[in-house]
């Protein structure tokens, strides 16, 4: 498995766990900031920090195991696959931002808008990583 494919698996896995915990456990425990908006900052901040730490540690472990490959620059296939993932993720993010920036302000309270925006970012990044992984697995002609 390519070094960058392993990193994509790590990114997707840690994201799903971290933000699954936020949207499934930690967020509901503080009503997603419905009573106090600042609750969103410390709960999501905590989860995002844990995610960042897991990514750093995981990346170091993968890089140490890959040694030579980890120091190599992304080649043309890696770049083509990354572009494809980013393009698809971008459209998902745009849809999410239209929802939270254009539609929701007319009907929803601030805490819902903030959480939906965070969810849109997480979904867009997850879609990006899934497209990257599918491209590595099934092939992508750039």
């Amino acid at each position, binding site marked *: 498995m390519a070094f960058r*494919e392993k990193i994509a698996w790590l990114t997707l896995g840690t994201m799903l766990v971290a933000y699954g915990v936020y949207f499934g456990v930690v967020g509901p425990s503080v009503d997603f900031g419905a009573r106090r908006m600042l609750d969103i900052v410390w709960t999501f901040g905590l989860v995002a920090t844990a995610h960042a730490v897991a990514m750093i540690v995981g990346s170091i472990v993968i890089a140490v195991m890959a040694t030579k490959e980890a120091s190599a620059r992304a080649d043309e296939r890696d770049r083509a696959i990354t572009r494809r993932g980013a393009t698809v993720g971008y459209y998902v993010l745009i849809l999410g931002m239209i929802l939270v920036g254009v539609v929701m302000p007319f009907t929803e309270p601030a805490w819902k808008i903030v959480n939906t925006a965070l969810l849109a970012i997480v979904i867009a990044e997850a879609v990006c990583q899934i497209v990257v992984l599918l491209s590595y697995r099934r092939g*992508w002609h750039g």
Partner: protein
Amino acid sequence: MAERRLTNTIRTLRFHAGEMTQAELGERIGVTRQTVAAIEQGKYSPTLETAFKIADVFGVRLDEVFQWGEGV
């Protein structure tokens, strides 16, 4: 009508080049071993520049490495 696709003879060319490894070929053309494997399996179509580099490594013409033919 069968779909036409890009096929290649890289595996055969590597064999005739003293069983050159995918890693060695990748190193000489500036891509990873996994990318060489993907090209061989038809999972990735290389850029024109990389295609010429592959032909150059084996000392053959481009159309001896890549063919536009019937898919499997």
